[in-house]
């Protein structure tokens, strides 16, 4: 009975992903995360910073995937992802807080923020999984320019705390 209650509350994204993960669960998951050394290129163009990281989480750029760790930077166009036991929180430069749940893939597709004028825009693409968004300065100044896109919908925000969950296409 408990299972059916869960079905009614969850969407395809949460329901299907754990099965694939369960089949492939192996020793690799227990390996410690690699230590990431910040590169100068990241520092110059950093648009956000990882906070808490639990389990497996990564930031990928040009095909190279690095393990996430608190304090590590992310840049525009990074693809962020978490494993089946992973979760991670990061802040963007404008103070937006993004919390990714397990089995999540999200692209930092568009981000521009002028700290002096506080103008700019944010565009996130949630490909799969769950993300909680607590918006920062950008959504307060330019609400129409803060978007989260999933394979089936576009979410526009206005001074907000919300969760988006999406199934893999």
């Amino acid at each position, binding site marked *: 009975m408990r299972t059916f209650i869960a079905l009614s509350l969850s969407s395809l994204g949460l329901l299907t992903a754990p099965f694939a993960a369960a089949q492939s669960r192996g020793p690799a998951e227990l390996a410690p995360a690699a230590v990431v050394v*910040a590169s100068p290129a990241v520092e110059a163009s950093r648009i956000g910073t990882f906070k808490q990281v639990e389990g497996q989480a990564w930031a990928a750029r040009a095909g190279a995937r690095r393990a996430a760790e608190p304090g590590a930077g992310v840049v525009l166009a990074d693809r962020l992802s978490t494993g089946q036991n992973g979760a991670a929180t990061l802040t963007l430069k404008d103070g937006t807080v993004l919390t990714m749940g397990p089995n999540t893939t999200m692209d930092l597709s568009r981000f521009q923020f002028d700290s002096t004028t506080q103008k700019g825009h944010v565009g996130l693409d949630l490909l799969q999984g769950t993300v909680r968004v607590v918006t920062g300065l950008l959504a307060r100044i330019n609400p129409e320019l803060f978007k989260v896109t999933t394979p089936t919908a576009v979410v526009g*925000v206005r001074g907000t705390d919300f969760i988006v969950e999406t199934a893999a296409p």
Partner: protein
Amino acid sequence: MTFDHPLRFLTTPALALALAATLAGCAPTTRVTLLPQADGAASVVGVSTPVGTQFLRQPYQVATVGRQGKLDLETTTAEKVRETYPRLLALQPPAPERFVLEFEPGSSQLTPESQAQLATVVASAQARAGGEIVVTGHTDRQGTLEANDRLSLARAQAVRSLLVARGFKPELIEAVGRGEREPLVPTDDEVVEPRNRRADVVVR
């Protein structure tokens, strides 16, 4: 992660396939849940698909998107959100801490009282996972907008240097100049107001 998720019981491939097949017909592809804002302020989320837009205006309203872009509105509860998204709630960082530093008149030199606060700022940032410090310099409205942008940035950078000297990682400190745009005490243009010559420090 704990393994008390109900799906933990469904571990055979046959069952997984059956479940996925069943769900593909009717389950939403995207769910958007509006949460209450920490300060209780009103907020709005619009969820758009090729067939329309659904607005969420009340906390715990949920927009669901079907395979063909069909939008439906549901209502959930705080308790159900905690059950469904435990990690999203658990990992939320603590609220940012704020400090105000003041400068000696017409300079980027901190007052002795404000210099004494720097150790607290660094300790606060170091206590956080991935802690960052954002220093935003401000000016009063005397002088041009451009000159005040430069002065406010110089003030922020002066504070940043002091924080770096205290051993905090440079890549985790941002210096921002807001010029005269955000006065603590609103005044007419060209009015001298010492209380507006300050740096706001946010530790997050």
